[in-house]
């Protein structure tokens, strides 16, 4: 069956009164305070343990922080120190590259995994659990393992794999040219199972009758995925993109443990820079300023994604 017919079919089924409709927005039933009552526990906890500390942190971004002697007000000095740092631009660029690369890679690989591992069979449970391990392993241990995999000689595991596809051994995390890509691969390795789980949950929720209908129309698996599965997964993909944007800006631990931003700043990201200029030098005010900047950037990015989503709907 043709592509347009399939689309028409799924649209039609949405309009039929007997078929379930996708709710666009809720309806106003009950007292106005009901939603707030449901939200209250979360909001109160957020206020106490996130927003109040954040307020303090924002204040300290304008101060020279001396925990014992008392803070001194320095205005925008901390922000200046960060923005005028030579490494700042590079760090921003690397953060973007790493973020986009990891997001796209994890999403593609995660989607593939989810497709392959969807189903109820017991052996699939086992494979899914095995694939999930990277998500639950402590980052410190993952870093150690990958450092071994990335051993720069010809005997290193990664280099051996390269030799199967007739490539020269790489220095991986030890060279400025390949350090960012090496970190990205680890991020994808960890991110794909993460995305896979959420996508599997989404796949489970896809209306099976639509698959039946498309098969009746003679559509093969590829068509099915493109015109039934993907549209149904839109909300899931939206979550994943939002989360990926947030995670991407805040990437820190894997870079810190594998390369610490090196060599020569080739894998420096914003958070490692904040760590170096702020925490390592005991300049908590600078660290706070960096965090505020990062927060603002993340908010902006997320708003963009939400707007794009609104537009599409």
């Amino acid at each position, binding site marked *: 069956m043709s592509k347009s017919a399939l689309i028409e079919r799924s649209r039609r089924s949405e309009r039929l009164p007997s078929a379930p409709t996708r709710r666009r927005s809720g309806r106003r039933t009950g007292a106005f305070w009901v939603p707030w009552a449901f939200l209250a526990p979360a909001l109160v906890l957020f206020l106490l343990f996130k927003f109040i500390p954040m307020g303090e942190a924002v204040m300290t971004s304008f101060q020279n922080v001396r925990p014992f002697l008392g803070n001194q007000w320095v205005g925008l000095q901390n922000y200046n120190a960060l923005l005028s740092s030579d490494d700042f631009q590079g760090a921003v660029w690397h953060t973007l590259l790493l973020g986009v690369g990891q997001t796209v890679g994890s999403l593609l690989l995660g989607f593939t995994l989810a497709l392959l591992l969807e189903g109820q069979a017991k052996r699939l449970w086992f494979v899914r659990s095995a694939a999930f391990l990277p998500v639950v392993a402590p980052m410190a241990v993952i870093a150690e393992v990958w450092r071994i995999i990335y051993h720069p000689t010809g005997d290193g595991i990664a280099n051996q794999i390269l030799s199967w596809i007739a490539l020269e051994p790489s220095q991986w995390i030890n060279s400025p040219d390949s350090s960012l890509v090496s970190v990205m691969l680890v991020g994808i390795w960890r991110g794909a199972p993460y995305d896979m789980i959420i996508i599997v949950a989404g796949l489970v929720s896809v209306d099976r009758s639509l698959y039946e209908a498309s098969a009746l129309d003679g559509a093969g698996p590829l068509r099915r995925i493109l015109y039934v599965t993907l549209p149904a997964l839109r909300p899931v993909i939206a979550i994943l993109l939002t989360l990926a944007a947030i995670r991407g800006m805040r990437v820190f631990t894997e870079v810190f443990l594998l390369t*610490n931003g*090196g060599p*020569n700043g080739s894998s420096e990201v914003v958070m490692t820079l904040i760590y170096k200029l702020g925490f390592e030098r005991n300049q908590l005010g600078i660290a706070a300023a960096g965090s505020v900047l990062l927060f603002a950037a993340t908010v902006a990015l997320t708003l963009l994604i939400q707007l794009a989503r609104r537009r599409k709907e």
Partner: protein
Amino acid sequence: MKSKISVILSVGMLAATALAGCSTGSEPQGSSVKQNEETTQTLEIWQRKAPGSPSDTVGQEVAKAFSEATGVQVEFSSILEDFEIKLQQRASQGDLPDIVINDTAQLGNMKTQGLLREIEPAAIEGSDKIKARAWDGAKAADGKFYGVPHTAQTVALFNRSDWRKNVGAEVPTNWDELVKLWEAYSTGDPTGTGKDVAGLGVPGATKRGYISWNTSSFFWSGGGEYFKDDGSGKFTSEVASEGSVAAAQWIRGLVCEHDVLQPGAGSQDTTNVKELFQTGAVGSYLVAPYELASFDLNPGRDVVEVIAPPAGPAGLTTLAEGNNVYLMAGSANELAQEKFAEWAVSVEGQTVAMAGDREGNLVRIPVNSEVDMSKLRTDSRWQMFEDLYEKNGRYVPAVPNWAPFLNSSAETLNTLISDCSLDVADEMKKLDGKFTAELEAQGALAG
């Protein structure tokens, strides 16, 4: 109605966060704290060791012995990872522990934050018995003392004697012979099994400044200097001087010319290198005596020799480190603090903390010159470390905060060994610029 709720909520949130922020204007603490009655004074002591470790055990013994000797009750805690965060937490509450046993290199940092009480060596009983060199580790940029030395150590070369014999070399007496020895390890099949091994193991990561910390001995011995001290507590950067560039060149040459370092050095830390030495993947490792016990087990006492590193072009200087007993500011138990400091440097205190031949000693090389190491430890190699310390030991420069300099120099060295095409003089010049800027930021720039 509809929009009011959300407006109220948002304003409420913002107000709460703003109010919270306003409360962080704390007043300076610890100006003059009311003292407890002498007989009721107690001490809270922190040391920078892993909880539950043998060092923790020895620490508890130290606390107990002190309490028995003086009648002062002690609460002794071992804290390791993110020690700094916990300390800052307490500092922000204005409630520091009474005593902190910590690195000598942390002195400047803690002093700048106002956390330390100044020490008058003359006022500490038994301070005259403390080795003069040890006091260097307790001195700040202003020439005054802010800690009481507790333990000292320096580094020596742990070397595979079996490999050396297999390649037919003698104990190296100068740097040329040293490098040749390492080259022989890397290329001459010292294990006899054809296994690929490296000459020298160096933790080359920038994390915690490891690479710089681990090669300072070579840097100094090779003619390098970090700063010139103008005598009044102000400094100028010396890392772009001829001697410094030559020393950095030599260190870089270990990778780029002679290829004697372990592969992947630039991303490895001390734990990695220790494992490499223990599993026979590197032939030499420059490290302090606390590893004697582990290396006696693996690779084994019979194949490891501990030698003083041969002198370089500028003689032999080895990195001296140690711990000080810091008396923290704002304590209500100042008399008890002083009692502990005096006891800790006494022969009794040092002996308990040395813990004989057991694991987890808090005092490696005693700072009290009256303590006879040979009576307390059966391993004669400790004496070698002590001699090395007294003759060639050198502490890190007494700038207000050494950490940023350690980290920048680590970045530069790591960059140099990761990219052999870079020019050493250029990179050291860049480092010089960073050093000068940092000195200025710390208010310690001369001229």
